[in-house]
């Protein structure tokens, strides 16, 4: 419990301090420190949970499923903060933003971390909603940090679309509460997920179906499911790169986490009804559509960060599909994919940040010959993209392998669509990547001071997961799988 409190309170304190801290240098360091403490606490929390089962109380609930995401979130938050310190200083030097902007940036960074962790650890659907909405509010200012017309536009679209989506999610929550009222005596517990899950069988199917549609559309907007995804590329491409990294690496995961939790409820309530797998089918449909559409989007990209945000949509679609497919194998694969995708994608965004600084632009057709200009950046971009494209020996391949296997057992004919989508996405990524990394360097491109440590760590982890899944992680993911699907894989 104490660990949990530290995990939650450190970012809050950090946010408050950073909001008032004027000098820039210390702020960056403080940001790193706070993230480090958070990560340490998260590690402690993880250890506690792994040792002595789930922690519950004060409308918080940390079980194997979300503690794994807590650890992931804290870790990505740490590495990204390490990357963002020199990066944002460089941004400041280029004059894209002022001191005040930097204060907002640091404060909001921690605030965002807080909302993420809150959303993950809370047991109350209402608080979950509040936290996710809070995440939107915390990041929307970051998107418009640079004040360029594009940035403002992106922020507005982000704000409006996610606001609406979230509002719909709230309606879904209200409906859930409405259904719960007649099942659960104590109204104050009517939004407590664990209680609801216990009584899921008695929740009225008709209401829960309605509720789930609203929740799916609402949180799905945040996940970036097609056709509610339009905010995502804009926000990713216009915000500062560290923010893109955490958005892609964390926010989408958390939103998907919410969807999965609610799916568990709805499955419980619909189990007896005529369409027991409704939620699963909806998820599969959304996932498949998002996956295919996004992979097609990859072919017509002019902006490097937009391209990778579409690849995020593609992978979220894949995970959504897998969770919808259900079954231990698919769920295990989806959890693993969440992990490796976050690692790889945030590594990619970090590298892309350096690349854009080298070239001075995000336009793909102006970024050339990275390997010549700065081999470290060029090679890591190349390898990271190979990893995200699902090439062994990287972890993404492992998870995609599991997903394909599961699909082949459940819905053989969908496998073809998946493989086609993978091939198309791969072609889209590499046809844009090739001219950027290879070839002669255009004059005027100079190497920048780049901190490739986070990238190295992330890629190393992904490589490790690709070669062999360590036993404890396998056990852990398996417990999470059991939590979600109710059956073991190992």
């Amino acid at each position: 419990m104490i660990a949990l409190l530290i995990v939650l309170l450190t970012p809050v304190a950090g946010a408050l301090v950073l909001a008032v801290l004027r000098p820039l240098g210390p702020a960056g360091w403080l940001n790193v420190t706070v993230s480090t403490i958070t990560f340490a606490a998260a590690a402690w929390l993880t250890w506690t949970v792994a040792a002595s089962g789930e922690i519950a109380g004060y409308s918080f609930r940390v079980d194997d499923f979300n503690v794994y995401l807590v650890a992931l979130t804290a870790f990505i938050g740490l590495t990204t903060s390490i990357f963002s310190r020199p990066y944002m200083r460089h941004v400041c030097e280029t004059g894209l933003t002022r001191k005040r902007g930097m204060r907002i940036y640091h404060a909001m960074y921690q605030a965002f971390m807080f909302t993420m962790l809150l959303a993950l650890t809370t047991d109350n659907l209402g608080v979950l909603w509040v936290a996710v909405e809070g995440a939107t509010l915390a990041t929307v200012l970051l998107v418009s940090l640079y004040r360029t017309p594009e940035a403002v536009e992106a922020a507005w679209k982000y704000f409006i679309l996610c606001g609406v989506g979230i509002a719909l999610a709230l309606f879904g929550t209200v409906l859930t509460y409405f259904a719960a009222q007649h099942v659960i005596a104590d109204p104050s517990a009517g939004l407590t997920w664990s209680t609801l899950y216990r009584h899921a069988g008695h929740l009225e199917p008709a209401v829960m179906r309605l509720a789930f549609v609203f929740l799916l559309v609402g949180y799905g907007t945040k996940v970036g499911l097609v056709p509610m995804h339009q905010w995502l590329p804009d926000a990713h491409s216009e915000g500062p790169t560290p923010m893109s990294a955490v958005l892609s690496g964390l926010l989408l995961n958390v939103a998907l986490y919410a969807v999965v939790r609610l799916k568990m409820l709805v499955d419980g309530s619909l189990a007896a009804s005529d369409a027991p797998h409704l939620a699963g089918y909806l998820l599969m449909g959304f996932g498949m559509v998002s996956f295919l559409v996004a992979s097609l989007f990859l072919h017509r990209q002019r902006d490097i960060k937009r391209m990778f945000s579409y690849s995020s949509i593609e992978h979220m679609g894949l995970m959504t599909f897998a969770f919808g497919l259900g079954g231990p194998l698919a769920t295990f694969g989806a959890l693993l994919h969440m992990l490796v995708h976050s690692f790889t994608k945030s590594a990619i965004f970090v590298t892309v940040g350096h690349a854009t600084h080298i070239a001075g632009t995000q336009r793909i057709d102006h970024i050339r010959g990275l390997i010549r200009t700065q081999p470290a950046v060029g090679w890591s971009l190349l390898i990271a993209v190979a990893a995200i494209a699902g090439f062994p020996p990287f972890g993404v391949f492992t998870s995609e392998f599991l997903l394909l296997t599961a699909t082949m057992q459940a819905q053989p004919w969908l496998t073809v669509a998946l493989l086609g989508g993978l091939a198309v996405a791969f072609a889209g990524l590499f046809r844009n990547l090739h001219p950027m990394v290879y070839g002669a360097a255009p004059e005027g491109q100079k190497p920048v001071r780049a901190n490739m440590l986070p990238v190295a760590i992330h890629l190393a982890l992904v490589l490790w997961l690709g070669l062999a899944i360590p036993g404890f992680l396998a056990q852990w993911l398996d417990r999470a799988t059991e939590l979600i699907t109710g059956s073991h894989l190992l």
Partner: protein
Amino acid sequence: MSITELPLLQQIVLVLAAIVLFTSFVLLAQARLVAAIHAFAWQGALVAAVTTVVAATGQTPHLYFSALLTLALKALLIPWMLHRLTRRLAIDRHVESLRRPALVIMAAVALVIFSYWLVLPIVQQELAYTRNIVAISLAVVLIGLLMMVFRQQAVAQVLGFMSMENGLFLAAVSATAGMPLVVELGVAFDVLVAMVLFGVFFFQIRDSIDSLNVDRLNRLTETTEEDVAGEGG
């Protein structure tokens, strides 16, 4: 069931809910911005009223508090902020009439029927009137969304957004006798922050495209080859 069998207070709730629905039609059709803001304020007040009535019927005292909260926030604070903004943005004389209003209104009506049709299968409730309230609030939410789709003016879009929130409140209080207090506070806080941020954005948008017409925010797109939108950095 016929309305005559209901106790008076619930009849009142139904009446108020009907008027809320009406106000959101007004919001949808209202051309003048300031008038729309007024309509929104009235809607907020009505929701607050519904809350009070429900509080009076049931044994949920904290609803009084949330009624107060709603009144303060939705009927007074936010409209006031919108007023100030419109004045400072010098658009308080702004008039924006819908294209093909008849069609839009028809769509809204269709949405109302649709939402009623949706809640029909809900049978478990001993009192069917809550179900109908849900239908009403669902309709309010959908109409709010519809308004955001059809209004090009940023402030108008915000109004639509807020009226969606009203619909949510209505559902929360009338159908479920209020959410847990933590949640209500959180929601209220979020709405407030959102409103502040909207204010900030109005100015940012005006600075960037010196207009508040959201249709002009179309740089970020993949569609056309020649435009080089989306290259910030």
